[in-house]
């Protein structure tokens, strides 16, 4: 210990704490045996339970009179898929052997590399087996109690039989949300602009718009639908009372979602830096011209993702119109459910909503990711 480490006395900044210590990041590695055994255990459980579930499912389907050929083919295919999880386990086993050989040969780098690969493989096996066990649990739930669960929610023949009826009713949902979306876009912008009404003259308008936004964001949508759908006809107000029930629920949804969308527009407008307004006004553009040509076009770009999210929520909220007796898909499926004492038609509705929702959510995600990347590219 005669190098410069001794020169660094205790009163230096670096302190000399490390005097005499050797660089050490561990010695010769051993094979991750315990981890691999855990993986083995989970994989065995996953494969065994998968096969049990598949055979139980096969028996149930055959008992239900589904043709044997396709069922057997599906069972075999699933059975084969369920053993794929053994592959990483096997890879991990071979790597463990490599670790031992490298350790015997005193090759520390090779041993480390093999150990890392062995651990990776074992973790992959554990992760896959765990996911497989969760799926098995789901399958077991469907088969539980003599398959009553699957029959209650997924009675396929009934789903096919009632599908035309449900689909026709689903058009009502689509019609309602399309109309509401168009109205919401306009109404939300009007309300948002009202919150920016300038000067003292604009203050009453600003206050009213703010109250409207607060109130309608506070009331549950289903209450607004109920109040408008049942209340307005009772009031007997001319013109209004003669509108159709569909029109009432479109109005109700527009009122509710319009408050949210106004707030989204507002956020978009506020996100535009005041210097843009200053530049526009300094060129002689009026307040409205500035909003129209400079602020709103820039704000809209930023709010498309939250706007689409609000639309997706609105689409799902159309199922609430059943409370006032509109025969939408949910209401129709509930009628079917009480006739057949089976909920499969409701599942059909759920599937229809999933089909229209997921592409939109993916689209929004992609758009937001692109925006983030663009911002990062600029910075």
């Amino acid at each position, binding site marked *: 210990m005669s190098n410069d480490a001794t020169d660094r006395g205790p009163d230096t900044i670096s302190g000399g704490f490390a005097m005499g210590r050797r660089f050490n990041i561990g010695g010769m590695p051993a094979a991750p045996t315990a981890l691999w055994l855990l993986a083995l255990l989970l994989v065995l459980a996953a494969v065994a339970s998968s096969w049990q579930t598949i055979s139980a499912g096969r028996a149930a389907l055959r008992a239900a009179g589904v043709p044997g050929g396709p069922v057997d083919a599906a069972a075999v295919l699933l059975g084969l898929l369920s053993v794929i999880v053994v592959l990483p386990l096997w890879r991990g086993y071979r790597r463990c052997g490599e670790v031992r050989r490298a350790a015997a040969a005193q090759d520390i780098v090779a041993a480390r590399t093999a150990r890392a690969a062995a651990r990776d493989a074992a973790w992959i096996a554990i992760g896959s087996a765990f996911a497989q066990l969760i799926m098995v649990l789901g399958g077991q739930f469907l088969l539980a109690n003599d398959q009553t669960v699957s029959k209650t929610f997924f009675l396929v023949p009934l789903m096919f039989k009632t599908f035309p009826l449900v689909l026709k009713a689903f058009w009502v949902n689509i019609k309602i949300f399309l109309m509401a979306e168009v109205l919401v876009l306009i109404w939300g912008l009007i309300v948002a602009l009202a919150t920016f009404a300038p000067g003292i003259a604009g203050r009453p308008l600003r206050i009213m718009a703010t109250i409207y936004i607060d109130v309608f964001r506070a009331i549950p949508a289903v209450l607004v639908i109920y109040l408008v759908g049942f209340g307005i006809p009772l009031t007997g107000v001319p013109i209004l009372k003669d509108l159709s029930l569909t029109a009432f629920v479109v109005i109700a949804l527009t009122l509710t979602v319009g408050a949210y969308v106004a707030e989204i527009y507002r956020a978009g407008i506020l996100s535009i830096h005041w*210097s*843009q307004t200053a*530049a526009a*006004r*300094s*060129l002689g553009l*009026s307040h409205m*011209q500035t909003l129209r*040509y400079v602020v709103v076009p820039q704000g809209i770009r930023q709010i498309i993702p939250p706007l689409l999210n609000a639309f997706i929520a609105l689409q799902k909220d159309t199922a609430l119109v059943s409370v006032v007796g509109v025969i939408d898909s949910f209401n129709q499926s509930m009628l079917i459910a009480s006739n057949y004492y089976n909920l499969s038609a409701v599942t059909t509705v759920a599937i229809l909503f999933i089909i229209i929702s997921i592409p939109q959510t993916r689209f929004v995600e992609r758009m937001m990711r692109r925006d983030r990347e663009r911002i990062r590219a600029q910075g």
Partner: protein
Amino acid sequence: MSSLFIEINDISKSYGEQPVIKHLTMSVDQHQVVSLIGPSGSGKSTLLRCINGLESIDQGEIRVHGDRITGPGVDVNALRRDIGIVFQGYNLFPHMSVLENVTLAPIRVLKQPREEAEEKAMALLKRIGLVHKAREYPDRMSGGQQQRVAIVRALAMDPLVLLLDEITSALDPELVSEVLNIVRQLADEGMTMLLATHEMGFAREVSSKVCFLYDGAVYEEGLPEQIFGDPQRDRTRAFLRSIHEAKRI
């Protein structure tokens, strides 16, 4: 030929409790270039924004061509048509191409036909050597190019006076001269200009008058050679000395 163009009489302005301009009086003659220099916070930018009507004043009055432009009842939109302003941060509209930036106000405010406005915009862009960028968007251009477009955007309204608010402060050093060249050219053509600037060399070269602002008022004013060569008052001297020490002159 020099006739009184902008008269600023004893104006004051505060943001809340914080006074920014205190009894400021000054004037700009027609075809004159007046530079406002002074430490940050001395009120240069606020003064320009008051002349353009972007800020209201609490006291005093501003007259342009003898007509009072402050106080109630003034049509600020009409006022701004004739008084152009260029900002430190360019403030181009990022969702519009260069051509759209330049033609927006002529089309929407002056109600010029689109072809006429575009023709004029292209002529202006040609003069600053950016005609090939007409269809580009601002974020695809350098700061110097953006600032030149911002100047053209103000010029497209045919303003009687141009207010320049530290227009080179946000620029990389090598881009400053391309912007200053345009200002120099405008000065040669007789454009009336009032500029807040930290470019002392440029102010000295181009100005007909220099006003040193300190603490919200004109502390000392005079010909450029007088202010820069032989300042009379302490604060002016101290300011110019610190500028010299930073080698920014």
